[in-house]
């Protein structure tokens, strides 16, 4: 069992959890993820490691309440336990050899770029950061990231925070204004990552994206998380989760991501009927 050391609400439906998991914290590196279960009959769901503290033996994750599992997790409190928290899984991503990195996050994608921003700051190469969200309340980790970013830009669809518009608008503006990046890392909804890649491709800037596919085991066993990268089938869990965004088949990934949508809705309806909603 893994204890929830702290839980902090970061917005309308996003929580930050610090989990007591020394074995996971010990080897965790930026880019890797964990799989957790909320209860004995629970589903296995992957979450990117946002932060890890080896001394305290804790791992931090950001969770947006979107489905049955995250809803149940949202109902848990500090001091509660979850039965499974396994990791670190996937491959770490190393950006330290690039001079000039732009990190772009949509929504809780902040969780993935945060450890990278921290590392880059630590080696004296702080990255520029663009955060995007529908509205102010969904801009995640702004304060945390501002401590490590060279420049931080916030874009919201409704203009309630930062500037109004999409992250791609800011990206284009920066590139047209003469900003030079050796690497762009974009993390967020598939549509957003696809749009970023379309822009960076025009400018020939290598771009890394993080694929949070549906998976069961996280060790290469089920093949559920497979995607096409450069015409080849790859697994998000063991070959990724981060890939060259210019080679990812986003349309296929979007079709696969929506496979369980109807079932998920059905589950939520049952939960609501049962009055378990929190």
């Amino acid at each position: 069992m893994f204890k929830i050391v702290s839980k902090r609400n970061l917005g309308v439906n996003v929580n930050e959890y610090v989990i007591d998991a020394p074995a996971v914290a010990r080897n965790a590196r930026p880019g890797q993820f964990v799989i957790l279960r909320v209860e004995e009959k629970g589903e296995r769901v992957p979450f990117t490691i946002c932060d890890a503290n080896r001394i305290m033996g804790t791992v931090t994750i950001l969770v947006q309440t979107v489905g049955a599992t995250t809803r149940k997790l949202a109902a848990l409190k500090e001091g509660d336990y979850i039965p499974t928290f396994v990791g670190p899984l996937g491959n770490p991503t190393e950006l330290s050899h690039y001079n000039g990195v732009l990190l772009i996050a949509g929504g809780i994608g902040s969780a993935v770029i945060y450890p990278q921003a921290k590392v880059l700051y630590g080696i004296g190469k702080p990255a520029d950061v663009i955060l995007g969200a529908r509205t102010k309340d969904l801009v995640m980790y702004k304060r945390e990231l501002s401590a490590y970013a060279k420049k931080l830009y916030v874009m919201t669809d409704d203009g309630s925070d930062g500037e109004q518009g999409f992250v791609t608008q800011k990206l284009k503006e920066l590139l047209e204004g003469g900003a030079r990046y050796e690497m762009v890392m974009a993390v967020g909804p598939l549509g957003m990552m696809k749009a970023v890649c379309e822009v960076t491709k025009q400018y020939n800037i290598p771009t890394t994206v993080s694929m949070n596919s549906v998976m069961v085991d996280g060790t290469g066993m089920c093949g559920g998380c497979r995607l096409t990268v450069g015409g080849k089938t790859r697994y998000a869990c063991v070959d990724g989760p981060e890939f060259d965004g210019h080679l990812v088949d986003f349309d296929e990934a979007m079709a696969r991501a929506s496979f369980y949508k109807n079932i998920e809705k059905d589950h939520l309806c049952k939960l609501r009927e049962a009055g378990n909603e929190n």
Partner: protein
Amino acid sequence: MKINRGERLSPIEQDPQVRRGNFYEVNKGFTPEMAIEEAERCLNCKDPKCVKGCPVNVNIPTFVRQIADGEFAEAAKTIKATNNLPAICGRVCPQEEQCEKQCVRAKAGGAVAIGALERFAADYALQKGEPQEPPKPRNGMRVAVVGSGPAGLTCAADCAKEGFEVTIFEAFHKAGGVLVYGIPEFRLPKSLVQAEIDKLKELGVTIVLDTVIGRTFTLEELCREYDAVFLGTGAGLPMFLNIKGENLSGVYTANEYLTRVNLMQAYLKDAATPVITGEKVVVVGGGNVAMDAARTALRMGAGKVTVVYRRSMEELPARKEEVENAIEEGIEMMLLTNPVEILGDKKVEGIKCNKMQLGQPDERGRATPIPVEGSEFVINCDQVIIAIGTSPNPLLAKSAKNLKTSPKGTIIINENGETSIENVYAGGDAVIGAATVILAMGAGKKAAASIVKKLRGKHGS
């Protein structure tokens, strides 16, 4: 000694029309009367060929005779002397390819139902709750076992009995490996696997779940902490056909489909894990896993299930009982058929196949299937499950550079079961590629014997 000259008895089975709608065990086994009657069919040969057909050399004539004499508990003890998991093997071993294939009664009323008798004795002992012998006193040495499938469980039990402090590391949240994520409830009740795991715990074995060796801990770290390590990591990586359309929504690997249904219990109404079962399901492959996937899909509510296999019934590798059961349940077997493309726009709409004919035998002696020119046709379906085999998971080997593996990814071992790293042993599917429970158990047993011998020698006791 009474000899029954009659025909081979079949165990009691759930009615096909009923069982295709539930997950209860299909085969209900023998009653004591049936077991005795069947056991009396054994001729007690002077040179028992059946024993040679058994990968772990169970003393078959002795235990069959004990059943005939009504000494069921004794029979179970005889089996357990060489087979740690008889209740499981009695259910999942390909007996018709092993012990029963060698039986001289094969031509006289059918081979003695050795598998069903093994199961009977093992179930009897389990129900009786016969206490197991306590392990030898702890010798102060520690063994780590990676993976809790048949190889790992066997190695752990044998080492623990000899007084070693054993820890099993399992990546999943439940122990049992393929016995819990792969083989369905209707063929191997999970309560049986749990009973075996509980017995291991009684022997003092610690099971650490949710731990991926190669990620959470490295092999190097285990080597520092333990006197010996056994790698029973299995063959968990699914193979693909490498044809167009394989990444469409609605294409599952059998591994994923079965894991969702078995381990994640998606067959229960209150399970959180979703699984989607189509109306028309095509399963590709001819092994036990293909049969398991097809029969599971039927039980999950598929309207029609078709198994597509590229060779003929004769080459079909699944256990005979499973194939017969599948057909009885209404699964269509489309033989000499090979998929060339999965059709659909985002979602599966059909599968394009070639008719095949058999050509020259390949290096394993199996006839090579050759496409019949111009024979392409389409099977309409909304789901495809690929069950064409698995290979060892490279995750651990990748993280342990000095662990030697073959080009196929299997771990290389010497005659003692030891890998290229000293005191690191391996066995089961991780070494030989996807095979059977009994072979994995045999390998776990052999490695345990080597570990015991080597570590004892080292400590001079």
